[in-house]
């Protein structure tokens, strides 16, 4: 007779980069339901609008997460710029695009490493993170920081990347592309890796929309939505296709993220060719009044930023709906009916960023 039990998973688990707790209802080795609990690293960053003025909040939003740091700062600044009604200089938009794609590269390489570590392929994990180190070196050269960059400000960016630096970065990425391809071919073709990913955690397109999934989680279920196509920053002048999966499973999510790695390298090449020579910031005078929202495509999916200002230096409300929070219902859906041994891997396929989720 089948035995039902409730097993706690997390918040401390070797596969989890950040703490999240799941109560798994098991019948023998099958998961019937998963109930998440978060809040272990809730820092109340949204409520800091009462203490930090709207310029300082750009630095606070960067610290929501260390992986998605740049785009959090960018999304917040874009929302405040929308309230002011200012147009950011074109060069600043191109620089934001280049740094965003570099963030996507380092985030996906980090995820690939964690995925390899989750199924015990440690040498592949180290190769992925070795390549990621080269992206972090590029961040350090261009911004002074490897994780938190502090280059976004309301009205533009604070640092420039001169032409010789951009040329060197493109050369670096050209050299890396071959190494990345060798590494990602193992994920896509190795029998042992495929046996852990193919037909595991299937999420259909209808389920993805019903659960509110975003990003690679949704695109792997053949739903072609990518917020970069709305044309924010310099994406309106960059040619790229939306990468979707074909098989709705964990292997498809891996395929989508690997495809986005090479796509990001191509986008950076295009941006470096087209970047114009203008100022980096526009002057911002006075205090914002009104409300605005902005949607960005972070590495994990669509991020929604809402800012409400009342004409003083402190904002009324700042809301960040992060992609991992939107993917939680999809996670609970894919966990239903899976084997207990596949739970760590399925949690990783949503690319969880719990710092972002809890803020």
């Amino acid at each position, binding site marked *: 007779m089948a035995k039902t039990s409730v097993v706690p998973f997390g918040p401390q688990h070797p596969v989890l980069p950040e703490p999240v*707790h799941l109560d798994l209802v098991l019948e023998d080795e099958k998961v019937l339901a998963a*109930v*998440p*609990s*978060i*809040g*272990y690293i*809730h820092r*109340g960053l949204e*409520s800091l609008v*009462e*203490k930090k003025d709207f310029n300082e909040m750009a630095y606070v939003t960067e610290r929501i997460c260390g992986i998605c740091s740049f785009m959090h700062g960018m999304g917040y600044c874009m929302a405040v710029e929308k309230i002011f009604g200012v147009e950011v200089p074109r060069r600043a938009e191109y620089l934001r695009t280049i740094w965003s794609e570099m963030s996507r590269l380092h985030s996906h390489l980090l995820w690939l490493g964690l995925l390899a570590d989750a199924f015990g392929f440690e040498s592949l994990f180290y190769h992925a993170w070795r390549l990621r180190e080269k992206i972090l070196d590029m961040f350090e050269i261009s911004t002074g920081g490897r994780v938190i960059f502090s280059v976004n400000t309301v009205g533009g960016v604070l640092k420039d990347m001169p032409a010789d630096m951009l040329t060197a970065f493109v050369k670096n990425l050209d050299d890396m592309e071959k190494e990345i391809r060798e590494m990602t071919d193992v994920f896509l073709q190795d029998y042992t890796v495929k046996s852990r990913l193919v037909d595991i955690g299937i999420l259909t397109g209808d389920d993805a*929309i*019903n*659960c*509110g999934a975003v990003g690679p989680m949704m695109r792997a279920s053949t739903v072609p*939505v990518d*917020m970069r*196509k*709305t*044309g924010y920053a310099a994406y*309106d002048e960059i040619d790229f296709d939306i990468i979707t999966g074909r098989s709705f499973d964990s292997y498809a999510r891996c395929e989508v993220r690997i495809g986005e790695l090479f796509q990001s390298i191509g986008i950076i090449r295009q941006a470096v060719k087209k970047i114009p020579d203008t100022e980096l910031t526009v002057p911002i005078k006075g205090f914002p009044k009104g*409300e605005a*929202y902005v*949607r960005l495509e972070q590495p994990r999916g*669509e991020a*929604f930023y*809402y800012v*409400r200002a009342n004409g003083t230096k402190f904002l*009324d*409300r700042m*809301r960040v*709906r992060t992609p991992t*929070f*939107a993917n*939680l*219902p999809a996670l609970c*859906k894919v966990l239903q009916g899976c084997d207990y041994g596949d739970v760590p891997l399925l949690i990783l396929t949503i690319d969880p960023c719990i710092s972002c989720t*809890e803020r």
Partner: protein
Amino acid sequence: MTEIQDTIFETDKVELMSIVLEKKSKHWRLCQICCCFVNSDDRYEVTYSFATGFRIENYRLIVAKEEEVPSISSVYDAAVFYENEMHELFGLNVTDMQTNLKDKLYRIGEETPFLNHLPPLPPKPKTPAPAAPAADEAKPAAPAADAAKSAAPASPAQQSEAAPASADKAN
């Protein structure tokens, strides 16, 4: 560039459910639900965002502090987490949630909801007035004529010369 619809529509509780059902029937996804407590008016503004493709529409529900808000989790499963979060962190009274996590979604040591919980900032300490320079005991006493001169108030030129010196001392 793909066109985006950038609108916030105000709605009420009765109309909200029909909007939600209409969006569901047209395969729109629930993008997010945002709760904002307006201190000055003592009311909640709950904004529901629905998206399809690259298009987004926002519907705002304005409710008083003790008023109940119906759950939409029977239509959109994803709403469970947003509604539990709003209830736990903001104290919004959401009824008939499909899965009520009973304030256990966020495992935080602080008491929730967080409304008006922040203590007032402590007053900034006043910068102390610069101390008067101590009299030098080794110097001989000034003669009477000089004493009469020094007793008179300093001219503006002399005051402006003394001011940078005292400012430097304060720094």
